[in-house]
């Protein structure tokens, strides 16, 4: 059985029919071909499928597509403006926080959500904010450096 679903993805209206058991991750990757969002454990532990739904980070593998009905979804593809990287992406590249890169989309969306809720997190708050994404390469310190860089650049531009 399929059900009509209307939602906004990266600012664009999307209309499609989904199966009731399809997840938001399935829709993003397999229907809309937005493969920036990665599939990992499928159990909410690795966080690689993190996207922003109605302003909050969620595991898209644990979100049924129909839960996003009428909602606003932001994925890694919606973060940059054309060729201009988002400040988090820029800092990420400069800090060397990308190694294999598989966790980067989920990690960057988690940082986006963290900085939206708390503009100046201390180190503990940063660790808590990125806790939901597993990275097996960096040991997390480069990622934390990247977040600190975003914060200090945010201060400069104020």
């Amino acid at each position, binding site marked *: 059985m399929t059900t009509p679903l209307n939602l906004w993805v990266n600012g664009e209206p999307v209309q499609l029919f989904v199966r009731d058991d399809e997840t938001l991750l399935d829709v993003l990757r397999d229907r809309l071909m937005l493969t920036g969002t990665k599939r990992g454990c499928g159990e*909410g532990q690795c966080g690689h499928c993190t996207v922003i739904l109605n302003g909050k980070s969620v595991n898209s593998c644990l*979100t049924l597509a129909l839960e996003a009905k009428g909602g606003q979804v932001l994925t890694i593809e919606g973060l940059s403006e054309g060729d201009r990287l988002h400040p988090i992406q820029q800092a990420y590249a400069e800090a060397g926080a990308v190694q294999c890169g598989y966790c980067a989309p989920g990690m960057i969306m988690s940082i986006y959500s963290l900085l939206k809720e708390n503009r100046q997190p201390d180190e503990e708050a940063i660790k808590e904010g990125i806790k939901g*994404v597993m990275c097996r390469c960096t040991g997390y310190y480069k990622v934390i450096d990247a977040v600190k860089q975003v914060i200090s650049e945010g201060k400069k531009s104020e």
Partner: protein
Amino acid sequence: MAEATDLLKKQPPAEAVLMAGGTDLLVRERQKLIAFRTIIYLRSIPVLSEIRPDGSGGLTIGAMASLDEIASHPHIREKYPLLAQAASAVASPQIRHKATIGGNLCLSSRCWFYNHSPFWRAEYPECRKASAGDKCYVLPKSRRGCFALQSGDTVGPLVALNAKVKLVSDEGERILKIEDLYLGDGINYLALGPREILTEVLLPSPSGTGAFIKFRPQNNLDYASFTLSVILPRDGAGSRIVVGSVASQPLRARKGERLLDQGRIGIEAIARQAAEELKLVSFVRGSVEFKRRVIEAKLGEALAAFVAPSPQD
């Protein structure tokens, strides 16, 4: 709400499930621990997410309020810090944005031998909870029963805070003390009837100071090895020491509570008494002896933070 209870009534039992945040339900579905044909999605009922004063100094929390909303709610942080801390200790921000307090209270009991993929479980084919077998791999000598653990982090604090829950069905509603929601068996762990929906958590006005500790081997997304929730009322009597995630129901250390009420002996003796009276089982997350010692130590720390030392100390 009426539509939800009506739907639940009309569905054949075992075919319909109630879904809140879905962060545990969908995992169990993928692990083939649960099968269903219909989902009744409770988060689409806006009134269930409300957090509002009850008019007599307490607070009513809708069961679909997310753990993130509870952890960051200014009134809860100020008046019921134990609950805010417990909510913020659950898993990751992503999970807390979706997971709800109602879901956390009704969270399926968990066990190392049960919450895994079918492939993994094939090694333990006689588990009473996973199949119709008659063995418990936690306590192989047990004749009956299941020792899967109550694992919601917010349960302990709500017992300590003397909270109640409202259960609604097509036939009416009833109010239950939160302790009475847990039946003490890993399979049949909740007093929630098949046609009932947990709609509200009712908190009385705060009675004193308290502390919450979640102990886990690493500060990661993991479930607790145990949680400790302590309340010391302003007017003496009615202390609570609640240990969560060590049995199929939250445990109260009643002798320890009485000693705390009397206030005559030292913190260390109270912590020792409380840790000793608990009925624990050895689990992958710790042997009985290990848990008892860590509970004693952590309880001592928690009490020291807000109990004035007595002369014996």
